[in-house]
């Protein structure tokens, strides 16, 4: 048995070249016979019943032979060995440690804005967007409902291929749907700003307030023709861009004026577990100031 073999082997104490014997399981053909018998047993089903019978007989022989190998104890083969020490070494002696500087954690901001800041920013931006949109409606189509219906058109039942006059008229369903879409989208984008602004390298308001809306408008401009061709015909892209930029700047400014809080990942484990230790906070604030 393998276990016995290792027991026999484990307690030699001599060193240097010496002779020993190792027990290994003896080779045997019985598993082969058993496997062949089983295969023939199955093959008989697709060929001839006699092949199954032959397979059964072979299996019987195989099982008996196998049992005689392991009972009452397993058959061994003794292999004489001269134990020699082999040197294990390497030509690559030099070991270099990769030092990861603390700043590598800078990708995860140490401080960020609270969630409320994002919501506030989104709401402020959403309100700031309204005047230019209404202004556009008044100037271009002489109706403040025009932009509202463009956004909320989906809410007006059975509205297919509306005329310009249709869009300029007041529809209360349009107003409700437009308001929901407007405020939900704005709050979501505001939250995104709150999460992203601390991570933007420099001039967050410039990037978040102007560059991002311009890119976003460009993306919409190039895809709206595919996504919703009808809506695309009615959008004045210049005005659209203006309102987006206003949203971006206002939301960005509002978010940036909020007080920052530490990200929980940078807090010590004890505090993340929710154990209140005011002294600990103080201590770490000081450490941060020192850095």
């Amino acid at each position, binding site marked *: 048995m*393998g276990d016995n*073999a*290792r027991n026999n*082997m*484990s307690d*030699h104490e001599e*060193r240097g070249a010496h002779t*020993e014997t*190792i027990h*290994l*399981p*003896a*080779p*045997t*053909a*019985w*598993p*082969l016979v*058993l*496997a*062949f018998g*089983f*295969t023939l047993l*199955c*093959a008989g*089903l*697709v*060929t001839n019943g006699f092949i199954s019978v032959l397979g059964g007989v072979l299996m019987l022989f195989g099982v008996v032979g*196998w049992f005689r*190998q*392991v009972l009452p104890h397993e058959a061994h083969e003794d*292999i*004489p*060995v*001269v*134990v*020699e*020490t*082999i040197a*294990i*070494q*390497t*030509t*690559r*002696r030099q*070991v270099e440690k*990769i030092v990861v500087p603390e700043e590598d954690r800078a990708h995860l901001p140490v401080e960020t804005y609270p969630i409320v800041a994002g919501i506030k920013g989104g709401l402020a931006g959403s309100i700031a967007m309204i005047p230019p949109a209404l202004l556009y409606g008044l100037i271009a189509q002489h109706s403040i409902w025009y932009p509202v219906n463009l956004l909320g058109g989906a809410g007006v039942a059975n509205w297919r291929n509306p005329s310009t006059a249709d869009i300029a008229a007041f529809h209360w369903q349009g107003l409700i749907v437009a308001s929901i879409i407007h405020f939900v989208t704005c709050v979501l984008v505001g939250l995104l700003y709150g999460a992203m602004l601390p991570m933007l390298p420099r001039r967050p308001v410039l990037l978040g307030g102007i560059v991002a809306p311009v890119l976003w408008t460009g993306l919409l401009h190039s895809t709206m023709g595919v996504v919703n061709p009808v809506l695309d015909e009615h959008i004045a892209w210049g005005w659209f861009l203006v309102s987006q930029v206003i949203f971006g700047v206002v939301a960005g400014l509002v978010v940036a004026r909020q007080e920052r809080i530490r990200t929980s990942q940078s807090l010590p484990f004890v505090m993340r577990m929710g154990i209140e230790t005011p002294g600990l906070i103080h201590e770490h604030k000081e450490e941060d100031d020192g850095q």
Partner: protein
Amino acid sequence: MADQTLPIHGSLDLTPPREGESTWLETLHSWVITVDHKKLGLMYMMLAIFFLLVGGAEVLLIRIQLAVPNNHLISPQVFNRLFTMHGTTMVFLVGMPLVFAWANYIIPLQIGARDMAFPRLNAFSFWLTAFGALLLYFSFLGGAGLYGMGNAPDVTWWAYAPLTARAFSPGNATDYWALALLVTGFGTLGGAINIIATTFSMRCKGMTLMRMPLFTWLLLVDSGLLLVTITPLTAAQVMLLLDRYLGAHFFDTQAGGQAILWMHFFWIFGHPEVYVLVFPAFAIASEVIPVFSRKAIFGYPAMVAAGVGIGFVSLGVWAHHMFTVGMTSAGNAFFVLSTMLVGIPTGIKIFNWVATMWGGKLRFATPMLFSTAFLFQFLAAGLTGIMLSVAPWNWQLHGSYFVIAHFHYVLVGAIVFMVFAGIYYWFPKATGRMMDEKLGKWHFWLFLIGFHVTFDTMHFLGFEGMPRWIYTYPADRGWDHLNLVVSIGGLIQGVAVLIFAYNLVSSLFKGKIAGNDPWDAWTLEWSTASPPPVYNFATDPVVHSRRPLWDIKHPEDPDWKYE
């Protein structure tokens, strides 16, 4: 003396070479009756490589047939047999034997054991697999199909009911399929039991579970997965045979049976099976990448946890093969989400491999080249997998060439690439000679190009709506040029594999002598001779860390100080 405490102090003997004196008949006899895990591992490997060539030849015929529109080189019936045999061969006679080839040869060496836990069961499992394979291929001669002549199974490798019922598949070709897989299935079960018992019960002193090499760990999880994966297939095959021979009604729609039950049973086996096949690729990558990056594996516990996680999650995703069958929305949602969940542990693995390479001193020997390609290709395969896991997308593309492209990206781009990496990596250990690096590079680049020409193009064929299983197509569908490109890529891969085969044989006789530790690696198998003596280690090794050979090579800075 310091050597009193040296962990591994002797493992080589100077026994007289016995095999050299024997005749070839005696040598053959010694291989046939062997219970030695190394010989059995090599036999599994030879079986797998042989059938890889056979299955490859079958698919080359398929590709030649599909290269141009309106081709009638081979008949539709033969085409059906070819893709059935290609799938069955590659999964059951290549992929599964490969699992056991690696596990058999490497695991006892890596955990410092003399043999597997059940050496005779090991031989039994191998011979079941080999004879099962013979039985399957005997159907080409002995199977009586619709046309009364030699006939291989032609019901695809998942053999959906009720196509497999007596009424629709007369003759016994389908029985050959079911019986052969039943036989190999028992072999697989025996092999899996053996691997698990070996890893749990045969570890050398100090080799705790959390010090086991990742290779061993992943194949342990793989075997656990096999235990609960291959057995449902066996059960389903028994039901199929009961239907066909005793007139039972499991999948008989005339008597109220339901064909969909077979689909569920088959994919309960079939999907985890894919993970069973890919685990050896993960295992090899987890050995090759650290050694050729000269760094310890990044995030060992996370890698273990991710491996176990993949094993568990893979058991709950099977019905994503059945979105087009029509399920409830809840069923669709569950299988979409569980399938996507697989992406998380797999992602952890990819990130950890990349993090292992990061900052390392990379050596792009052939095994590392294959591993690097594997990382990219496995990522791409995973991403198309996530695409296909979205039910509506799946409704659109199920049964198209996009699906073929996706799973061949896994099976070839990940598994076959890593099998090549593993062969280049451990060939010196098994034979004592290095494989030729120059031919290896030719093999790698040709295979890489052929792979991408074939399978990248297949994605587009899928988008263009080309269905699977068609044996030819009219010229006006816009599929002609792409199909030609796919076929040419297939031929390039064929050439690359021939180069590999030549390299394998010529290196066996003329390769550079390797020495015990050609790659300067850290796991126990490199501490013994190449090829290892029949008893592996003359004295039982004792380990103290995950990289026992590192500890010996760098006594001033051993790993156990950090673990």
